[in-house]
């Protein structure tokens, strides 16, 4: 969609075009203060323009670029789209860093609020062009021993996906599928509270020259936007994932409320119910790959991220034991991205085990009362491999 179709005043349109903004996608990655500076208008005007632009962008369906093959997209368009991607932060700058989120502005890290990058969308830089169009698929497996913080990371993602667009977040809702009963509401409340506090501090820091944009979000609102399902058997798990298609279509509202659609599905943990006696292992593999395919289809259709938390088990190799993700190799291979959480000395580390776009790297993080945060040790460093 072009700028000239935006419902803004003629003078604003003229300013945009003379400043070089020709297409909508170029407006998607700029902040309102930068835009105000470039167009020499007030910041409130700039925010208005961006709001209108994002609204129009949301209502269009696909790129109307001409292509030789149906549904294909030129590489240039893909690169452009990539750069305008939004991210969900993990709230730990080191973790965001290795996940390709990048740090937006240096000041943000200094006040402890990490950059606004999506743990799952950052691996989104790799887009899958299929017959249905170039939709991005984010499919991530996170594995670790008990007590390393998988559930904590899951809750943090379900909270952080709700960070509004104004703060560079996705402003989306979350679906949390709990198979183990590890989800504690009081903990989610604690994490939501800390997230709101961080947001208001960020707000106070960045907009100190501008009038206060009050944060009207309460922890209760954040909890309301997490759709929580508790399931007790593998048949329930499969039935739920089949049902999610209907659920997501019903919840796809496009009104201008603060949170519009579901943007992430977290499954904690995807392995628990499958580790019982399955008489037929081949059946288990079939069921698992069917489930993975369904989840991938959901991710594609509704442009959302899927984060699966996995348990680990020991693999008997010759004479020694090795830690491996539960449910076997074929399951590990269905996911395009894998992150392994492990202990290194006294610290928790996350290691990108497999990703089509990111380098293998590990970063330290810690689980605090406020959720997942940067590790505060003095000898931390991000190891690139």
């Amino acid at each position, binding site marked *: 969609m072009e700028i000239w179709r935006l419902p803004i005043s003629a003078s604003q349109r003229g300013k945009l075009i003379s400043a070089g903004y020709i297409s909508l996608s170029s407006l998607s990655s700029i902040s309102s203060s930068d835009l105000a500076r470039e167009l020499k208008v007030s910041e409130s005007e700039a925010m208005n323009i961006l709001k209108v632009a994002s609204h129009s962008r949301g209502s269009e369906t696909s790129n109307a670029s001409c292509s030789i093959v149906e549904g294909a997209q030129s590489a240039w368009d893909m690169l452009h789209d990539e750069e305008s991607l939004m991210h969900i932060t993990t709230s730990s700058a080191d973790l965001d860093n290795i996940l390709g989120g990048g740090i937006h502005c240096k000041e943000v890290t200094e006040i402890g609020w990490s950059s606004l990058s999506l743990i799952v969308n950052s691996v989104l830089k790799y887009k899958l062009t299929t017959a249905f169009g170039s939709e991005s698929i984010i499919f991530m497996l996170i594995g670790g*021993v*008990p*007590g390393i913080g998988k*559930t*904590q990371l899951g809750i943090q993602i379900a909270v952080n996906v709700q960070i509004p667009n104004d703060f560079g977040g996705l402003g989306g809702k979350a*679906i949390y599928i709990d198979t*183990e*009963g*590890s*989800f*504690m*509401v*009081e*903990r*989610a409340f604690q994490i939501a509270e800390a997230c709101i506090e961080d947001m208001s501090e960020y707000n106070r820091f960045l907009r100190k020259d501008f009038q206060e944009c009050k944060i009207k979000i309460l922890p*209760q609102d954040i*909890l*309301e936007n*997490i*759709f*929580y*399902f*508790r399931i*007790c*058997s593998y048949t329930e798990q499969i*039935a*739920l994932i089949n*049902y999610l298609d209907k*659920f997501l279509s019903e919840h796809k509202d496009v009104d201008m409320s603060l949170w519009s659609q579901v943007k992430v599905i977290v499954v904690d943990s995807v392995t*628990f*119910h499958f*580790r*019982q*006696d399955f008489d037929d292992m081949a059946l288990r593999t079939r069921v698992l790959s069917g489930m993975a395919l369904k989840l991938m289809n959901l991710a594609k259709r509704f442009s959302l991220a899927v984060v699966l938390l996995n*348990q*680990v*088990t*020991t693999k*008997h190799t010759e004479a*020694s*034991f090795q*830690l491996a993700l*539960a449910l076997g190799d074929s399951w590990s291979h269905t996911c395009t991205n894998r992150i392994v959480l492990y*202990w290194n000395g*006294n610290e928790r580390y996350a290691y990108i085990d497999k990703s089509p776009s990111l380098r293998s790297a590990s970063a330290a993080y810690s689980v605090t*009362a406020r959720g997942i945060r940067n590790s505060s040790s003095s000898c931390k460093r991000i190891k690139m491999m």
Partner: protein
Amino acid sequence: MTPQSLLQLTSQKCTTGCPILDRLLYGGIPCDSITEIVAESGSGKTQICLQLSLHAQLPVSHGGLAASSLYLHTEFPFPFRRLHQLCLSFRSSNAHHFPVNDNPCDRIFVQSVHTADHLLEIMSKTDPFIENSKNQVPVRLIVIDSIAALFRSDFDNTPVELKRRSSLFFKISSKLKALAKRFNLAVLVTNQVVDLVGPNEGINGLRIGNLVCLHTSGRRVCPALGLAWANCVNSRLFLSRNEEVIREENEKSNGQSCDFVKKKMRKLYVVFAPHLPESSCEFEITREGLFGVER
């Protein structure tokens, strides 16, 4: 299938009977989740189990669950005498909740379990049992003391047998969690420890949770049943027991002298839990029960 509203989901907790321990556990043992207590023998696991079964009968306003409990024990004999002793002190400190001829022991249902298959059998019968109990005092607490005893002897140390053992863990845990969710029960499971021999490498030294390694009685230990069972529980608490030599100043007739006295130091650690930070506290076991000590 509709999502549950998180705002209406309250996690109820069952008090342990001691305010210091309750503070450490953010209220007590949570419902709809499996809490595991790991300790070597003689550390106080059974004491906590008995104490919890009694305190579950307190009304909700006092931190209890207003419920009876199901106590599955695998080690014989069941400590009836100790339960009776605890019951007496429980009655006297909570006299206003219980009429004179009411015996709290009546509301603890004891069942012995012999093997893992026996446990599975019992659990399939537990469903209607708990359903029926709703008419009198509902069962809201299940204690299994201890789960390790069921698995320590029946299985060989071959990969095939270990695999069979693992899948039994998940079966049992899945059934327990389904029960816990259906009737909003608190489940408390106790586990034993095994010694860690050899260097702290490989699977031997696999760190699970907040503590680098667990120490009790001056030796390094790790919970029995391995990584598979660790994946089945929601929270894990560790009780350690150590003999400490403490210097005590004594007034004697020929002036001051000091005695070296051996004292038992007992500590409760949170190894991992989705809602608790890393913490620990000291406790002691008296005739009245198990209580935290504020130092």
